């Protein structure tokens, strides 16, 4: 068993297992923790696939930024009644049927294309030293993807201003009649 396969299975089981743990736990604080572990393991998978820059960005932006934001949300709304909310059994059954069907379709599609199956030639490629991707990726972002890059930067700015506007402190509204009924 080579190191590539060993670490792939380690990170893959962590990513999938913690993703399922996010699904099956009812406690929102634990969900946040499992989500961090799952996304961290995913960045390990990115490194193994040769995408070193994307793996680093996954750790910095996703795990270090987005999830911290989510955890702030969890902490700001952490009242005892919202920490763990149970779902009806009927909802589990219905969504389980849909999700199972989706999973079967995706898995059968993954193994249907012969080029996507593991091959010995690819295993030899995986033994080669890694070529760093950050500088070609930077050139690519500022040449081929220049327009999407600019759009996404302006989009991020607009979105953050909008989020700050939406979440600004306002006078707390007294609960309306619609709430009490």
């Amino acid at each position, binding site marked *: 068993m080579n190191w590539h396969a060993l670490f792939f299975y380690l990170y893959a089981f962590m990513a999938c297992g913690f993703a399922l743990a996010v699904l099956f736990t009812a406690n929102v604080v634990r969900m946040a923790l499992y989500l961090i572990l799952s996304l961290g393991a*995913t960045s390990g998978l990115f490194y193994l696939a040769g995408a070193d820059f994307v793996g680093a960005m996954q750790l910095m932006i996703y795990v270090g930024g987005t999830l911290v934001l*989510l955890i702030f949300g969890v902490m700001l709304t952490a009242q005892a009644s*919202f920490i763990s909310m149970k779902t009806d059994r009927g909802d589990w059954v219905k969504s389980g049927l849909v999700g199972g069907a989706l999973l079967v379709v995706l898995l059968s599609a993954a193994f249907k294309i012969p080029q996507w199956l593991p091959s010995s030639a690819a295993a030899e490629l995986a033994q080669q030293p890694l070529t760093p991707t950050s500088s070609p990726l930077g050139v690519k972002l500022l040449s081929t*993807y220049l327009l999407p890059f600019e759009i996404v930067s302006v989009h991020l700015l607009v979105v953050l201003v909008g989020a700050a506007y939406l979440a600004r402190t306002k006078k707390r509204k007294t609960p309306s009649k619609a709430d009490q009924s």
Partner: protein
Amino acid sequence: MFTIGVAHYLVVGAVMFVSGVLCMATKRNALGVLMGIELVLNGANVNFVAFGSRYLQENPNLSLYLDGQAIALFVIVLAAAEAAVALAITLNFYNNHATVDVDRADELKG
């Protein structure tokens, strides 16, 4: 079994995607729904990176290489933007209704 191909990564992506979809469907806490969205985007990202990897396919020239990774970067940035807005909406909902239960957000129900 011991050689890793694109299909292995697709399986991981599929499991993460499906658990994210189920999270969105079953969680009653609005933040749980947001975490489901993050899982879905991440499952898609695993697929992009796998298709962009030169170490997983027999013919490396068939892979997307940097295109897959660049799109994965865009997905990460868009996920950050989406999380910021969705969190602001959730906090607003919490301020106005003193709950984060998505089943209680039914004022616009016809």
